[in-house]
């Protein structure tokens, strides 16, 4: 029982860094691996790490929803997309430097934006806002205070669907 000799804070810190490591390793695999199937598995691992972060922040419901929707549905849907893509036994085209550069610049811009955003924001600890974070409360918030955000997020799905239709149409006709 060496676990109990540690203070709760130490255990929490260790748990935090483990979750972070899982997230980062998953993200690296998702970006760097050459086999597209490994990319998806890396993404699943990364999302698992994110679910762990939510659990660390004491909101198991959001963590489980993360697993149910992102790992369970989105990653599987991506696997479907892979099955429609090029066969894996074909030689893969070499990485193009300009694309990597574009990716790095794009991701870097997002990182800078998020960094600035976190610095500017006045953070209020959740405990001071409310003490009741049950599923019922979350549901009420989603349909009252945050209904607009909730609806705007669904636009993302619409855009994704339109994009899929456009890509699929072009592919069918040309090949």
């Amino acid at each position: 029982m060496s676990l109990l000799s540690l203070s709760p804070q130490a255990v929490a810190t260790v748990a935090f860094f483990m979750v972070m490591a899982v997230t980062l390793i998953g993200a690296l695999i998702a970006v760097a691996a050459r086999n597209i199937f490994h990319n998806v598995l890396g993404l699943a691992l990364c999302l698992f790490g994110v679910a762990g972060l939510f659990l660390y922040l004491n909101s198991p419901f959001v963590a489980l929803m993360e697993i149910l929707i992102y790992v369970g549905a989105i990653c599987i849907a991506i696997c479907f997309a892979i099955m429609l893509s090029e066969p894996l036994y074909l030689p893969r085209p070499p990485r193009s430097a300009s694309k990597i550069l574009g990716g790095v610049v794009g991701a870097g811009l997002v990182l800078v934006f998020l960094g600035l955003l976190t610095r500017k924001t006045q953070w209020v600890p959740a405990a001071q806002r409310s003490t009741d974070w049950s599923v019922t409360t979350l549901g009420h918030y989603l349909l009252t205070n945050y209904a607009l955000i909730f609806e705007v997020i669904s636009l993302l799905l619409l855009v994704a669907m339109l994009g899929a239709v456009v890509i699929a149409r072009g592919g069918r006709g040309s090949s």
Partner: protein
Amino acid sequence: MEMLASYLGTEVARMVVGLIGVIALVSVNALFLIWMERKVSAHIMLRPGPMEVGWHGSVQTICDAVKLMAKELITPEEVDRPVYYLAPVVVFLPVLLTFLVIPFSQSLIIKDLNVGIVLILAFSTLTVLAILMAGWSSNNKYSVFGAIRSVAQNIAYEIPLLVTVMSILLMVGSFKLSDIVAAQGRYWFILVQPLAFILYIICATAETNRTPFDLPEAESELVAGFHTEYSGMRFALFFLAEYTNMFIVSAVATVLFLGGWRGPILPGVVWFLLKVYALIFLIMWFRWTFPRVRFDQLVTFAWKILIPLSFANLLITAFLMKLF
């Protein structure tokens, strides 16, 4: 601080005891279910089934398990090694986790989370990912076919399953499994939601890849489907996960529709296990009653019949809840 440590101590002890109990239950349950499956199938076909080892062949599966453990773990040449090795682990671990919230009786539950049913549903989706990993990494066309079929089938049947469960949750107003059982104090939910029960059982049969929805491992077309290339204990893990999944879907059905551990005279655990094994028997019965469906029938059935029915059921439930 000390109080927290002692609290943590009891929690950790509870977890450790629970985990050991769950692993024991999973193994014994799988051994028993395989024997039961062989006996049920045999008696439905009017033959005795295994009779040689032990009373009515009751030790047969233990011998089979020992044989499986002694077998060589074959790794084919061209497999995608890391994924190939990981797949049996990924299929088995979430199955263990779901036992965390299953209430065997009033007090016999490892951790009564208030998001219990969501936990079970979330981790059961990981089975698909594991099947896909196994099929894809095996580098074998039969395995890939099995995996693709499994994914298409699971995505299609997951939607009506979730919507059906939602109509029960609407009546209870809680994700906690013990609350769902407590809400059935006066009558079982199967009496007021018979359609939901039928939908749930159909979807659960499909989710566990059982006949008549066993296209992912259709023996007559795909050798063994996604686990064709696995041998020894790796194969045994897939098998174990399949039978444990059967136990879990039956346990969830017991909690949602059959009043969980409730019942007269006998203790709660006994009632719970009786109901679970009765449901498992029902699922086994399906296997020897219905022929395997064709793939287009399978997908059409899910999208055109089950999903509209489950949504109609949800709407009617919501309407009646508002009315009364």
